[in-house]
């Protein structure tokens, strides 16, 4: 795991921001594979469903002074019967809506999820439409132009990736990071966390904790 860099690191101009990123899209379009490629730089053909790990973090360095940490929420399969909880969208600052460029129906589903996001998530959420399985481009059913036209119409970003080969994965997350409000302290999750209590830590009972 990448080491944590705090906002008070050595260089005075160092910037650190943390964002919640959610993934959406039809089952089997490769949502988890994209995350695993990004976080662990690995790929498994036989990934069945999302079990065990649905909460991962990855840090990227935008420039020597700017670090962005993504807190990535996978659907844990709850999208299958359209049973995602409102908690999933809550405070998400970025969303990847994934479809499979070899499956026509998956773009239709992606359109549904974009609409859901616009209904349920923060109004300033950065949405990116992601066409996956670029390694299968001979079997492509959805052209880049078609997907791009749709993305432009909704004023969202578009990128094409291959979780299998790793092509464009890093660039895609980088593009998302560049769109996020890095300087806006009120959007940064670190700020919000300060006001809340950490249930797993036992404070010294002799000390009056000020949680304000």
């Amino acid at each position: 795991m990448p080491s944590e860099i705090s906002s008070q690191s050595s260089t005075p101009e160092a910037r650190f921001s943390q964002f919640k990123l959610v993934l959406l899209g039809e089952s089997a379009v490769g949502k988890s594979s994209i995350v695993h490629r990004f976080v662990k730089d690995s790929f498994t053909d036989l990934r069945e469903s999302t079990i065990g790990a649905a909460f991962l973090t990855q840090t990227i360095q935008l420039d020597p002074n700017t670090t962005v940490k993504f807190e990535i929420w996978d659907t844990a399969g709850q999208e299958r019967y359209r049973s995602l909880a409102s908690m999933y969208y809550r405070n998400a600052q970025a969303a990847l809506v994934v479809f499979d460029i070899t499956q026509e129906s998956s773009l239709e589903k992606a359109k549904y999820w974009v609409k859901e996001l616009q209904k349920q998530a923060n109004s300033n959420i950065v949405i990116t439409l992601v066409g996956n399985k670029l390694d299968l481009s001979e079997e492509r059913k959805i052209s880049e132009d078609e997907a791009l036209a749709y993305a432009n119409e909704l004023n969202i970003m578009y990128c094409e990736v291959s979780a299998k080969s790793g092509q464009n994965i890093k660039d895609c997350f980088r593009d998302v990071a560049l769109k996020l409000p890095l300087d806006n302290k009120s959007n940064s999750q670190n700020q919000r966390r300060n006001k809340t209590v950490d249930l797993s830590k036992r404070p010294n009972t002799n000390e009056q904790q000020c949680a304000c």
Partner: protein
Amino acid sequence: MDESYDVIVLGTGLTECILSGLLSIDGKKVLHIDKQDYYGGESASLNLTQLYKKFKPSKEYNDQFGKDRDWCVDLIPKFLMANGELTNILVHTDVTRYMEFKHISGSFVYRDGRIAKVPSNQTEAIASPLMGFFEKRRMKNFLEFIMKFKDDDLKTHYGLDFDKNTMDEVYNKFGLERGTKDFIGHSMALWSNDLYLNLKARETYDRIMLYLSSVARYGKSPYIYPLYGLGELPQGFARLSAIYGGTFMLDTPVEEVLYDDEEKFQGVKTKEGIAKAPIVIADPTYFPSKVKATGEKVIRAMCILDHPIPNTSESDSAQIIIPQNQIGRKNDIYIAVISNSHNVTNKGYYLAIISTIIETDKPHLELESAFKIIGNTKDVLMGIAELYESLNDGTENNIYISKSYDPSSHFESTTDDVKSIYKRVTGHDLILKKRATAEEEAELAGL
């Protein structure tokens, strides 16, 4: 869809979702269904459009109190004890990963016509306006006794035996007045009536210790509360269950329950097809013929305010308890106050949720003293809920039905129900193990 499961869970209330999560961690294959299109059942938090539709269908919500999505109103008002069992389960299952909590600013009790902070240590007892000069000393001695009590050290027992003496006898040993007994028993031990006075003192001692150790964790009050409302709790446990392989289907009414020749549970039929499992866990609404009314009815008034509660030092959140004796009732009245600081209201607004067990045929009049405390309201929505419990324990037909959420101010009875059902379903006690960290889980998932 998959045809067979180890357990089918019906309803996404908190009890069902905790059990779903725990059983999934145990490796059980869980199918979790809710007839409604949102998580939480009776333990959901609703936005104002949903709330008006449910409680004031004649009056549509049209943004008079700001944007709908800024509101999360709990259907069942409760707080978590900072050191209580739900907190323990949250930490062990690491559901805290998905949620954030804040403490509740104040814990208040009504005595002789006004409200005052519940003293939580000897120093506060001395400063409290709740008691006269001599009574303060007696209260200080009582608290000192409770805090220093050790089971294996007879010197700390003052000749009392918690397993033989009643709580009233313990109070009397310290010469405490009736009003002081009221606020210890009702605002610290959180009993909602006076039956406890004649029970063995042990449970009341445990409850007072839970209160004191909970206050000690974050100061100010023993209570904590999740940002965005209690409805986040079932969602967090549902996510836990899903991550461990649980399948979730909302907006899916049960069309038919299937039984075998011996009238044992076999499965359910829904729009997605037939799903089979040897065991079902459900809330009472899924098996109306297999539950009975407990006889208790709860009235809950959700009050929208544009000011903090008077005499609470402008607290952004508070628990206010009106002990039954103080207003000539048999059951306490609770007022849970929350606001924008817990992200459950629009800025500048407060929510006061008043609840009690109904004692007369004019239940709304029973809340009068609470309305006096909270001051002017912008609007009030009221609902009455009947409490249900299962006719049998489920071991005969493999249908395990949870209890309705009672009017108590915290979740201790809910977690008792979770543990009881867990034991009946699995045959062994719930032993909480520390869940693997995110990284360990990633390893387990083959990364």
